[in-house]
């Protein structure tokens, strides 16, 4: 069997070099995309109409000298190419400059807000994916059944509901309380001031998290349900499922061991894409629930316009999508051996 063993070894070596080439290719694509995002974000916000200095000083008496001083302070008197170089050098040090409106480094603002956003949107996406995929598997496996039709109808109804409206409804009914119903949940924010201790804070944040996450889940889980359902439908007639049944497997095992692993592939891509959008994607929900996250920050930055802040957030949002795409590309071959070759 030495011949066979050698073939086997050569096979693994070839496989390893294929994997390296695959990973390298994906990394390169991601880096190029990131660079394009950097350049775009700089020039995009220079083209936008509106003078930042005028915006900063609205409603106040300022002399021309003061305006010039502000321009100098924020580097706006420099030629465009000089500003771009400073911007690139800053990015390399995670230095996005000073916020026009808060007068503190943008990186500090982002660092403060990113945690709450990841907590809210990450939890929301994972819960939505879990519910959507589970229901989608059952709906697809028993397609045409009462359960399938009911599930699909409810999911699509909720999908068509505007998230801010549903959020407000939750606040009115479950947070403020109406009639005999007491307010069960806080109306907004992420924490009650004065709560201390790890356990108490965790419980408090969890309590604040319920309504925004519920809003998000209700509105987005239909995506996962529909994708998972249609992937399951594609698999139901497949020959390998007949083989699995012929082997004597119970229906539940045919589903779990054979149909789901094959049907999961498109849904995984969707989950990763949505995780990338998570960081910037819940502006409406964050605003409705006064959640101190990146969405609220972006919203406040747009009103000024606070160029360094908005520009930096743009880079953060886009990078998150690119990185999650990269992760999806790297995880996919683990799930589908056919992609590995």
């Amino acid at each position, binding site marked *: 069997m030495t011949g066979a063993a050698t*073939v*086997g070894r050569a096979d693994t070596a070839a496989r390893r070099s294929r994997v390296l080439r695959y990973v390298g290719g994906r990394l390169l694509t991601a880096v190029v995309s990131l660079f394009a995002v950097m350049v775009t974000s700089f020039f995009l916000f220079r083209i936008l109409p509106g003078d930042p200095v005028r915006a900063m000083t609205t409603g106040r008496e300022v002399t021309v000298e003061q305006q010039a001083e502000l321009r100098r302070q924020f580097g706006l008197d420099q030629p465009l190419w000089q500003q771009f170089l400073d911007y690139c050098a800053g990015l390399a040090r995670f230095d996005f400059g000073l916020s026009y409106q808060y007068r503190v480094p943008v990186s500090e603002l982002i660092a403060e807000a990113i945690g709450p956003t990841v907590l809210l949107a990450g939890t929301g996406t994972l819960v939505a994916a879990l519910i959507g995929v589970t229901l989608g598997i059952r709906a697809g496996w028993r397609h045409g059944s009462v359960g399938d039709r009911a599930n699909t109808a409810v999911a699509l109804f909720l999908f068509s509901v505007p998230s801010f409206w549903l959020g407000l409804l939750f606040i009115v009914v479950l947070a403020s309380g109406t009639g005999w119903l007491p307010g069960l949940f806080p109306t907004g924010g992420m924490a009650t001031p004065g709560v201390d201790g790890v356990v108490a804070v965790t419980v408090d944040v969890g309590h604040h998290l319920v309504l925004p996450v519920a809003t998000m889940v209700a509105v987005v889980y239909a995506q996962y349900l529909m994708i998972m359902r249609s992937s399951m439908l594609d698999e139901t007639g497949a020959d390998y499922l007949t083989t699995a049944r012929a082997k004597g497997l119970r229906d539940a095992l045919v589903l779990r061991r*054979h149909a789901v692993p094959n049907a999961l592939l498109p849904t995984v891509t969707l989950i990763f894409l949505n995780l990338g959008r998570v960081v910037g994607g819940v502006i409406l929900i964050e605003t409705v629930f006064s959640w101190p996250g990146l969405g609220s920050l972006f919203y406040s930055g747009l009103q000024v316009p606070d160029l360094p802040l908005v520009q930096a957030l743009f880079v953060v949002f886009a990078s998150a999508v690119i990185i999650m795409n990269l992760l999806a590309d790297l995880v996919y071959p683990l799930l589908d*051996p056919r992609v590995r*070759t």
Partner: protein
Amino acid sequence: MNYLEVEDLRVSYHTPEGEVPAVRGVGFGLAAGSKLGLAGESGCGKSTVALALLRLLPRSAGIRGRILLDGEDVLTMRWGRLRAVRWAGASIVFQGAMHSLNAVRRVGHQIAEPIRLHGSVPRDRVPQRVGELLDQVGLPGWRARSYPHELSGGQRQRVMIAMALACEPRLVIADEPTTALDVMIQAQILRLLDRLVGEHDISMLMISHDLSVLSGSCDRLAVMYAGRVVEEGPAHAVVTDARHPYAAALGSAFPTVGDPASRRAPHGLPGDPPDPADLPSGCAFRPRCAVVEDRCAAIDPVLWPVDSDSAGSAGRSAACVRVLDSAAPEDTGAPDGAETATTRVADPDTTLPTQESGAQY
């Protein structure tokens, strides 16, 4: 007693247009260790028969009749019993192993799955057993770690055969086992299947559209047309001296080795198989038959013993009015019971009563 005994098997599919009969009364028996070939063009119901044997047809199919596997009726079995019989009592070598194997699981895992499920060997011996099985079909042991797409068509079919033998069943159903393979690989796979089935004393039901494949591997042949067996007998006799015009046409569609004339001009059969939802009156083969007569529109012939006077006709039967003519009317008994595989005459009634939708899964 025959290991497999199929009696008056009828399968129809529920469609929006109504009941469509796919199998219209098929019967045959298969003794332990014998090999029966089931031939016919696509759509004649042969694969439906294969799937019906283990109740693997979709829910939209209604099955009637009796399928006795080792004396037990598969169609009335409880679920638990049915699952225990699947693969351990009878396994299937499916067609086109690319789609019949799960693309995201290693082949070793897929071979091991029924072994673990049916507890054929102690748990700690499963990997060793998988190695033995791969060795039996001529694949090196490290192939257990391969995925189906990393194997060639012939190798995948070998994996499929290893899988079919995993639980040492007494019957293997080979459904078009070599259809997607080129001729050289086809011959290898057939030899392999033949050898393994012989060594383990397994009965085999081989299904193919290719008479030459079947005649090489099987003791007896049954030719199906439009959901019925139209001719049945010893393999050699059916191929060389068919009594039913359809079986004859199917035989001459493949060139005979050593006969240049037939190789240059294989005879095709004009026309298409009939729509099962709209069968012609009388004999279903009538519209394509070269020797059709007026009475064929009125008579729907059943399997009838071929005149046993002529040489090589023992245990043969065919469903054609011309066979009916030549046979003595008193000779209504089933064909010679001493045969290893026999086909029973089906109820000539073609109408299929609507049946209660029994769940097949």
